[in-house]
């Protein structure tokens, strides 16, 4: 067993309730005792239980699957449930992800932003519906291709890539890595019958792949380790090819 005295963590949280006209953004620091294997999820629950029950933050799965608990930890976007306090210093600063609608404190409304993105980029399989026959067996797919598509499908829309993107900070109409990754996923999928020209219309502009400045914040913060850098490069090549036709 560890007989060292547990550390006292000083967790500073950016607090603000946008619905309270008298409130203003301010930092509030809580001191808690660190325990073995403590994650930020556990630490925040401890704060809410023992220090301030009005603290707002989002959690669902606690296992890095739902993407709800994304926040800035010492300035870096990441999932709080997968962040061990042992890997951080004694002073930890937490802030909500920028760009998304703030619900309060660390809680943000990523769903609204993501829904708009998905509708805008039409992130679903496009097929010629009149020709669809539902009694036909689905065409077989090579396992390697299925794996590749599945790999990109692991995106949980946590918003970390958006918060880590310098381009989108300056130009909020940019679709970000989350959007481009989705397009790359459907572009790979043989069931999606969209032509390259149709994809070009979605992302062949400066809000799409040609707006990306390759700062690679997205690549470096993605909690799911999606191959964002490589897929954005792939889309860039595909879209240049489409423009040459």
């Amino acid at each position, binding site marked *: 067993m560890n007989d060292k005295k547990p550390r006292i963590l000083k967790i500073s949280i950016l607090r603000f309730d946008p619905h309270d006209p008298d409130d203003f953004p301010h930092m509030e620091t809580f001191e808690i005792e660190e325990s073995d294997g403590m994650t930020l999820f556990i630490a925040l629950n401890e704060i809410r239980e023992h220090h301030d029950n009005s603290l707002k933050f989002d959690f669902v799965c606690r296992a890095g699957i739902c993407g709800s608990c994304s926040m800035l930890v010492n300035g870096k976007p990441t999932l709080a449930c997968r962040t061990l306090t042992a890997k951080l210093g004694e002073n930890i600063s937490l802030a909500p992800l920028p760009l998304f609608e703030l619900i309060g404190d660390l809680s943000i409304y990523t769903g609204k932003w993501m829904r708009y993105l998905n509708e805008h980029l039409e992130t679903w399989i496009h097929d010629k519906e009149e020709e669809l026959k539902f009694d036909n067996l689905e065409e077989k797919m090579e396992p390697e291709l299925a794996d590749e598509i599945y790999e990109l499908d692991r995106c949980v829309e946590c918003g970390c890539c958006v918060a880590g993107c310098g381009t989108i900070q*300056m130009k909020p109409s940019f679709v970000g890595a989350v959007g481009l990754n989705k397009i790359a996923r459907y572009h790979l999928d043989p069931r999606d019958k969209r032509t390259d020209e149709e994809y070009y219309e979605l992302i062949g*502009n*400066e809000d799409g792949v*040609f707006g990306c*400045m*390759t700062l690679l914040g997205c690549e*470096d913060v993605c909690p799911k380790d999606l191959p964002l850098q*490589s897929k954005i490069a792939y889309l860039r090549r595909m*879209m240049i090819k489409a*423009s040459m036709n």
Partner: protein
Amino acid sequence: MRQKIDKIPARLDLTQSVTGLILGLFIMGHLIFEASILVSNEMMYKVTVMFEGYYFLGQTHPAIVSLLAGFISIVFIAHAGIAMRKFPANYKQFKTMQKHISIFNHDDTSLWMVQAFTGFIMFFIGSVHLYMMIAQPEHIGPFASSNRVVHEFMGPLYVLLLLSVVSHAFIGLYRLALKWGFMEGKDYRASRKRFKILMKAFIAIYLILGSLSLAKYTYIGMTHDFSTCAKYKSKTINLEQH
């Protein structure tokens, strides 16, 4: 009827990359040829007359250097004009980006600010340098260049230009490789790490090389007596206009 796709964004992106690549490769060669002064005055003279066509045409034509500088100027202006799209368009965007960089503390994002800044500087000092090369191509050589560095006060401008161009070029080439997936290999993350090491190594090597050359030109400029002979006389190549 379906509207035709707008191909301009694709062309702008590609042109920015291609012009950047040309300029990056050009600078890599330029600074090496420049450094021939470190070998000897004679070596630098030989490089000079090579670009003036001596080894191909039998005599020197400084106009060739003018033409080359003119071509580089066109590429330079095209690159600057297109890359300008990426600059912050107003104070708010600048401030947002600066704040993001300071909070996020992420290498590749911070390097962007370096690129934007050095790019902006080069609008001015790069233009001065290019114009001089177009207008006075005959004033290149071990003594003529040294004279320019010291007695025509180009030294300070060259120091700034060296710092800007070397960092801008190699950060740019690094980003270019990642942007298009150049030599990604099976493990693109490992290849990014390699490119980053290469980028840092090239910046260091070229800064050292450039500074040493500049120091040598300054030394020649300070010690050489320009009143007797302003131009270098080669021992092996005898040309009337030189």
